[in-house]
């Protein structure tokens, strides 16, 4: 098939936008961590790019997005392992005119960010090596199958994964595959690793809120590629997804700070950043199926619900450090279910009519099944993976290392040079042996 340059250009841009979301997550999470563990937090995002990117090329794409023969309802095959033969500008045979390799790269960025999102639940206390092993196993046996269930469609109607092609549940850009999936996995890992030392007596305040806002901004920017790129074309569907990504996020950011003003007395920067992310999460599955006003309504609901949901961990007693469950799992569930209420084929013929558009409760039922299946599979399998890693190589660092800070103990680095009236003078630091003898510059004390 002939390559469509317009569609291809938009997908190339979208892919780069979505990849930027993972460093965005790194800043969002890094800012919320404590100063002694910000590097480890950001490192967990960056290493997921490194590991998952390679997995995706070797077998991930093939298992998620090719025909699995007899097992096609649940998993794909090995036809495209190593992307062998996809180099020659082969295009997807779905009429979009996009080279297969662009679609492979686009989907790789989704797998990458889903894994990175999970890390927010285990801030400050996960062995780095255990996390790397986890990313490899988790993307293989949790992310890839769920992506296949929801997003692989065969050439004939009804062929493909059991959730999307099978029962016809809608997930435009990853509400179930990415957010509910990551949120449920985050809950499982938070339970495996246990609470941080001192939590919840000390709520462990964010060390750098400007980082959090920077991360949220990068996420919002990249999310236009995530949602509007999922149209797989420079077309009207992309336009709907794009405006809805803007509007739902506005609604949710606003709703979150209103809840805060009423509940806590102040609207906070952490709140507006969190609300924006919750809105982005909520609109993700729905972005191409609802009207702009529907998107605003969805955003307002998601923002308010998530603002309350993040306090659940204190009531239930699990240390989901950076609220992956409260924002991504809850936001994803609300968004996925609201499709059943707000979706309308007036916006997108490829979608379906929800409750308000006269479609009855059938779509809501399908959405509920997809939500429950994803929650259950992701939570249970992640719990097993986490436990196995914990029993073999150990998942948690020592108490001593946790108190000292994982940055210095795991990575031999620290983010900041603290503790001096003269910033940067290095009080408390140790000077390396003077290199003056060989003519190199020596450090001058301020």
């Amino acid at each position, binding site marked *: 098939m002939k390559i469509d340059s317009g569609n291809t250009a938009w997908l190339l841009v979208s892919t780069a936008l979505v990849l930027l979301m993972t460093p965005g997550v790194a800043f969002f999470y890094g800012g919320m961590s404590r100063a002694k563990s910000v590097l480890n937090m950001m490192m967990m995002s960056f290493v997921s790019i490194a590991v998952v990117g390679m997995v995706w090329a070797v077998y991930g794409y093939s298992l998620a997005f090719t025909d699995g023969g007899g097992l096609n309802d649940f998993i794909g095959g090995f036809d495209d392992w190593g992307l062998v033969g996809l180099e020659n500008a082969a295009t997807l045979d779905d009429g979009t005119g996009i080279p297969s390799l662009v679609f492979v790269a686009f989907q790789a960025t989704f797998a990458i960010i889903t894994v990175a999102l999970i890390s927010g639940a285990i801030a400050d206390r996960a062995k780095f090596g255990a996390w790397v092993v986890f990313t490899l196993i988790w993307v293989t046996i949790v992310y890839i199958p769920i992506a296949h269930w929801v997003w692989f469609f065969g050439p004939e109607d009804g062929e493909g994964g059991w959730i999307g092609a099978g029962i016809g549940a809608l997930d435009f850009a990853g509400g179930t595959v990415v957010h509910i999936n990551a949120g449920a996995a985050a809950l499982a890992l938070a339970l495996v690793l246990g609470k941080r030392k001192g939590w919840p007596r000390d*709520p462990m*305040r964010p060390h750098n809120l400007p980082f959090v806002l920077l991360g949220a901004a990068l996420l919002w920017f990249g999310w236009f590629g995530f949602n509007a790129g999922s149209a797989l074309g420079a077309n009207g569907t992309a336009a709907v997804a794009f405006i809805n990504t803007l509007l739902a996020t506005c609604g949710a950011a606003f709703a979150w700070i209103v809840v805060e003003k009423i*509940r*806590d007395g102040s609207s*906070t920067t952490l709140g507006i950043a*969190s609300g924006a992310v919750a809105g982005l999460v909520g609109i993700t599955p729905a972005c191409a199926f609802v009207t702009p006003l529907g998107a605003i309504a969805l955003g307002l609901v998601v923002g308010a619900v998530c*603002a309350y949901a*993040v*306090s659940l961990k204190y009531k239930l007693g699990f240390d989901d450090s950076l*609220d992956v469950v409260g924002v991504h799992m809850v936001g994803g569930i609300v968004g996925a279910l609201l499709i059943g209420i707000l979706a309308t084929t007036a916006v997108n013929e490829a979608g379906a009519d929800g409750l308000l558009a006269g479609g009855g409760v059938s779509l809501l039922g399908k959405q509920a099944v997809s939500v429950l299946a994803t929650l259950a599979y992701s939570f249970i399998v992640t719990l097993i993976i986490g436990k196995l890693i914990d029993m073999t190589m150990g998942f948690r660092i020592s108490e001593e290392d946790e108190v000292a800070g994982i940055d210095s103990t795991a990575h031999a680095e620290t983010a900041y040079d603290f503790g001096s009236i003269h910033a940067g003078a290095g009080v408390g630091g140790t000077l390396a042996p003077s290199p003056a003898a060989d003519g190199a510059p020596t450090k001058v004390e301020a």
Partner: protein
Amino acid sequence: MKLITAVIKPFKLDEVKAALETFGVKGLTVSEASGYGRQKGHTEVYRGAEYKVDLVPKLRVEVLVDDADADDIIDVIVKAAQTGKIGDGKVWAVPVETVIRVRTGETGPEAL
């Protein structure tokens, strides 16, 4: 001789320093400090979770002075550091037995 120690709000440092210079004080030592007084610190809220910040950042200013000047210098510091709001800090003085200037070995009031 006396050692006057003042714990002040950080933004007041410039005013305190200027006031001491005007009075003729030749040197001082400044270090970062944190702590709380009767009013305790303040409360911050992160995603609905309250975080009590008991230890408020302060600066500790130390000056070695002659006995005769001590009361005046304390007055100067208090005036310069005052905002009238809670958390303005404290100033106190303790007697000092010996002072030695490291460079010359001078001792006592000559070393100030």
